[in-house]
């Protein structure tokens, strides 16, 4: 293990690799700070461009963008009251009021240091948990893998907004359906091509991923053009910024609790920093002695908690992606696409066969956070300018970069048309309020699900029973079932209690 670790250190601590991480972090910070441009978008833009790079350079670069873009969201949240990324939604609640009171540097400092500590601790969790989980996963058979795919979809569905659980499943089935298109390798027959020869090779994942995310987002971003957003004036002072580090360390329990929440939520498939920061904020409020002061921009922990949690989710989200090949959130989904683009299939075998690459990911993660912290000290004035860049200059540039990226994957226009087609699909889903993440997960996990199901049935001579009788597979399916049933039962009980109270109150009122 130490050999692999040293190999990882040696690979990352090369001048070009360090420069790539630094540029990735800087680019990520700028993109992440622009409201509406998420970390997913930042990675989506870059993944195809890394195609001709060496994996040892591409992965650290993407890690830099990933860390930078998630962290960059805090600037928009604090100075505009608009989160740069959904991961910073909880930061708005107290960060903006704090900045509005003339304490913008303090708010930024608290958020930056909390992000960095949360992220670094989640990196430690990644290093400790991922190899252990990979070892366990080596004993998994096709039954367990198929059960994991079911668990992923049940997780997404149960975490969906109220009334959208079935829609999330429908979205997953759209993705699974799209994954069927093309030549079936086992039987040699074409499926769902409707006679179009260009569909015989199926849909390439990356144009689909980029289209589903980028086009709806860029189209809706045009609504903000011409709107004058009030950016708070910041009298940035480095000394004051640095002094907030002590304040962050002083809130160690809030920091640790939020980091823990972030890691756990990050590990859950399909749920990421977008949820963890809100949960951490509400937990900090519940455990505070002065909850009434939350939302007023007074307490350091109200900024520290959401930021520590959203960065901690990043390490958490990488755990299932690296060990099981199941992404923790949309950004790691893009990272998964990047790995696949370079011919590397994440999963337990990655740890056995490409341990050096795993360690490159680990080391690059820590280095990216170190660069992130360092750059933030000097980048705050630049990111403040970035959030004020008129959107009409950004949108066409991003669309063109996406187009070039999609083309450069296979040098064929078909992928570019797929990018547009999937973009339109994503836009329609956005209008009818159907989540897009399950579509992508379905598209990526569909072939894996089919392969594992076929293997499981072949080994079990056509019997479905081992899915339930094998302990791990049975347990995963049970958890999947509970994750679907329990929220519905709790919701029903809550409604029933509310109804009873309402009936009692109205009876008392009439008496």
């Amino acid at each position: 293990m130490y050999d692999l670790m040293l190999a990882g250190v040696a690979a990352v601590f090369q001048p070009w690799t360090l420069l790539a991480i630094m540029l990735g972090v800087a680019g990520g910070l700028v993109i992440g700070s622009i409201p509406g441009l998420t970390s997913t978008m930042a990675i989506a833009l870059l993944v195809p461009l890394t195609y001709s790079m060496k994996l040892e350079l591409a992965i650290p670069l993407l890690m830099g963008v990933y860390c930078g873009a998630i962290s960059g969201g805090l600037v928009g949240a604090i100075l505009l009251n608009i989160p740069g990324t959904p991961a910073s939604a909880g930061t708005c609640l107290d960060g903006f009021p704090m900045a509005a009171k003339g304490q913008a540097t303090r708010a930024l400092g608290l958020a930056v240091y909390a992000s960095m500590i949360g992220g670094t601790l989640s990196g430690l969790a990644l290093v400790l948990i991922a190899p252990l989980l990979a070892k366990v996963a080596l004993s998994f058979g096709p039954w367990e893998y198929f059960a994991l795919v079911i668990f992923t979809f049940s997780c997404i569905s149960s975490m969906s907004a109220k009334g959208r659980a079935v829609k999330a499943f429908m979205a997953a089935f759209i993705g699974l359906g799209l994954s069927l298109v093309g030549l079936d390798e086992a039987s040699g027959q074409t499926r769902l091509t409707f006679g179009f020869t260009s569909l015989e090779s199926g849909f390439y994942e990356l144009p689909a991923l980029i289209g589903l995310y980028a086009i709806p987002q860029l189209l809706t971003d045009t609504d903000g053009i011409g709107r004058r957003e009030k950016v708070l004036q910041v009298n940035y002072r480095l000394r004051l910024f640095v002094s907030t580090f002590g304040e962050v360390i002083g809130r160690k329990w809030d920091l640790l609790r939020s980091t823990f929440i972030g890691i756990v939520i990050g590990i859950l498939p399909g749920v990421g920093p977008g949820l963890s920061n809100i949960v951490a904020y509400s937990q900090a409020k519940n455990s505070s002695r002065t909850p009434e002061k939350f939302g007023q921009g007074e307490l350091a922990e109200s900024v520290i908690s959401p930021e520590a949690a959203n960065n901690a989710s990043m390490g958490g989200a990488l755990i299932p992606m690296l060990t099981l090949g199941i992404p923790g959130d949309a950004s790691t989904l893009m990272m998964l696409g990047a790995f696949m683009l370079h011919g590397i299939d994440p999963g337990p075998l990655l740890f056995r066969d490409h341990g050096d690459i795993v360690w490159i990911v680990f080391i690059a993660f820590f280095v990216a956070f170190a660069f992130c912290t360092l750059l933030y000290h000097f980048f705050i004035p630049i990111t403040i300018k970035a959030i004020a860049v008129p959107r009409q200059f950004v949108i066409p540039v991003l669309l063109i970069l996406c187009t070039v990226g999609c083309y450069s994957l296979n040098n064929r226009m078909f992928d570019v048309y797929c990018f547009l087609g999937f973009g339109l699909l994503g836009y329609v889903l956005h209008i009818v309020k159907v989540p897009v993440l399950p579509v992508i997960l379905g598209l990526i996990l569909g072939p894996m699900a089919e392969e594992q199901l076929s293997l499981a049935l072949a080994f079990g001579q056509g019997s479905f029973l081992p899915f339930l009788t094998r302990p791990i597979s049975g347990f995963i399916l049970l958890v999947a079932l509970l994750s679907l049933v329990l929220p519905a039962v709790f919701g029903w009980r809550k409604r029933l209690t509310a109804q009873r109270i309402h009936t009692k109150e109205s009876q008392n009122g009439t008496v």
Partner: protein
Amino acid sequence: MRVNDLLFSLLFILLFVVAATQITQLSEIASATVSARLFPEMVIGGGILMGVIEMIRTLVSRPRKDAPGFRESWKEAFLRRRMYLLGLFTVYLIAITHVGFLVATAVFCFVTILVLAPRIKPASLVIALAVTAGLLGLIYVLLVVYLKAFLP
């Protein structure tokens, strides 16, 4: 949203039924232990089931007062700037194969910046030109020179 949800469910079921007609045409291979149709049939069957559940759920549930109506949501979908961008981008993709990538990109970038801008001032023309030139330079240097990639 009720009408939207119903329309979406209907369209969803219809698409899956069309897909089912294709899947039934798949032939079985005698030597295969697992049917070639099994997984596609599971996906399509599950999809249709979900579509039906969603449709029933929409019909049975009470409409939410805060949810946007059918007209509002589609009015938002066809907002002027969104449609301009979508139209220009579609034309751009078609134009790439006819006039070449660099020309099409230059025109698309410049025109889109101006079309999306709230007001066209002389300064915005200069900035649009600068952004276009900068982007083309970046693409050329980064992709063609450094990454040795092909342009469309």
